[in-house]
């Protein structure tokens, strides 16, 4: 059975396989397990969500790695602490990952994010600016040089092709969303291609799930904004997931109440059911986003069955990034005096 067939086979109930042990990673896995002890629990997030105001929520961070240096510190400082923690988590990941090609694969996320931002600015004739992430594989100097000189051959091959396709797609009808669709598609293809080259069952399954969850989010957004007639479904929905893109296309034609039965035979039934009904009643994507995060986290947590291997290290990175996002999300919501119930709905 080849990998192409494998990723579209739903031969599991909730989560696909995470692969097998690799005993070279005994030290690295153990270190990650010890680091996981410092991670936030759901109860800690709920306490923050239930805090009366931003200051009280920020106080709950004292004694954690996100603690503000002094009382009365502002949100800007907290943001810089969160960025520092994210950089630290990524450094731990790079240090512990023995297969450097896996570390580089995860760094391409920043490359694609930079590319998306730069293309949006360039094609809409806005200044390029210099607020890009420096945690990718491509140095910022090289990146800036490629865009200021319009010499995209300086970029790695996978980025060159993405640039060409994104520019072509944008100029077809000058729709800015086309840039995102093309880059998302290139990124998904690249991830899966690299995962197959590395012969990593875990990464193939992880990227498959991520593609499916992106498909669910996109489908709900297109339905909600009723803009699916303006886009070509085959371009919008990512291939390489466990669910065929045709299922998402079919979902676009149905009402919210018919979405869940359509996904009944997939592992995403609960996500679609909860997300669609919340969207229909509350006009909000909060529940769908929360369910998508929970599903991915559930898959990452299933790496607990691995005693030694790269899987727990990848899982640690993604869960840590998710934790940082959630801290930012709760505190931003508190800063803007959002209703506690909304925050609870988002963090689950």
């Amino acid at each position, binding site marked *: 059975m080849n990998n192409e067939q494998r990723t579209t086979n739903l031969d599991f109930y909730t989560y696909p396989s995470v692969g097998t*042990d690799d005993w070279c990673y*005994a*030290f*690295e*896995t*153990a270190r990650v*397990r*010890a680091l996981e002890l410092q991670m936030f629990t759901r109860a800690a997030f709920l306490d923050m969500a239930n805090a009366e105001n931003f200051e009280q929520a920020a106080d709950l961070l004292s004694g954690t790695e996100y603690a503000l240096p002094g009382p009365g510190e502002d949100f800007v400082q907290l943001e810089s602490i969160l960025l520092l923690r994210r950089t630290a988590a990524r450094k731990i990941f790079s240090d512990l990952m023995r297969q450097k090609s896996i570390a580089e694969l995860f760094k391409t996320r920043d490359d694609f994010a930079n590319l998306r931002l730069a293309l949006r600015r360039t094609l809409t004739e806005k200044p390029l600016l210099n607020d890009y992430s420096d945690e990718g594989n491509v140095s910022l100097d090289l990146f800036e040089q490629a865009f200021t000189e319009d010499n995209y051959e300086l970029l790695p091959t996978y980025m060159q092709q993405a640039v060409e396709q994104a520019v072509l797609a944008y100029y077809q009808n000058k729709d800015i969303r086309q840039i995102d669709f093309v880059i998302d598609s290139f990124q998904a293809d690249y991830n899966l291609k690299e995962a197959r080259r590395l012969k990593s069952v875990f990464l193939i399954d992880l990227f498959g799930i991520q593609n499916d969850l992106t498909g669910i989010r996109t489908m709900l957004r297109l339905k909600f904004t009723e803009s699916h007639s303006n886009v070509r479904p085959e371009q919008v929905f990512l291939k390489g997931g466990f669910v065929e893109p045709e299922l998402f296309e079919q979902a676009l034609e149905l009402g919210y109440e018919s979405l869940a039965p359509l996904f009944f035979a997939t592992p995403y039934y609960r996500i679609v059911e909860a997300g669609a009904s919340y969207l229909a009643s509350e006009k909000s994507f909060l529940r769908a986003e929360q369910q998508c995060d929970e599903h991915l986290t559930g898959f990452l947590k299933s790496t607990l069955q691995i*005693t030694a291997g790269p899987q727990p290290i990848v899982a640690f990175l993604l869960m840590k990034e998710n934790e940082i996002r959630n801290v930012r999300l709760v505190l931003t919501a508190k800063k803007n005096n959002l209703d506690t119930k909304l925050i609870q709905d988002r963090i689950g």
Partner: protein
Amino acid sequence: MDYGMTLAFVGAGLAALMAGIGSAIGIGIAGRSATGVLSEKPERYGQMFIMVVLPGTQGFYGFLAAFLVMLNLNFFGEGGAMDVSVKLGWQVLAACLPIAFAGMMSAIHQGKVCSGGILMAAKRPEMAFKAGVVYAVMVEVYAVLGLLVTMFILLKGINWPTPPA
């Protein structure tokens, strides 16, 4: 050195070598896991120690079997090692195989079980002995059985010739 003696030494060597290799691999696995946890939680050293050393016992079992062979061949006695027939050589070699193979395989797998136990002890220290050590000892049982079979054959099954006066 005659053929029989060579076979006997191969047996003794295999017992010590294979069980020793198994123990080294097992301790290596458990040790790497333990250092990973200790790099973040040094206070857990006591809990980790027993799970790191457990896979080392098979190496001692192999050494014990090899020592018994050498002792019965009067290796350390006056007059030097006795003459060993080909038949006796084969018997000694066969006697050493249970601890050689059971020792090697059980030590490697015990190292993996201990590694799992160490990871669990990192998150749930109260389970370190109850599950981590007890499960590892379950694997140890099969190395002990291998050693017992080796010892029974060496001590009861073989008619050792009388050492030279």
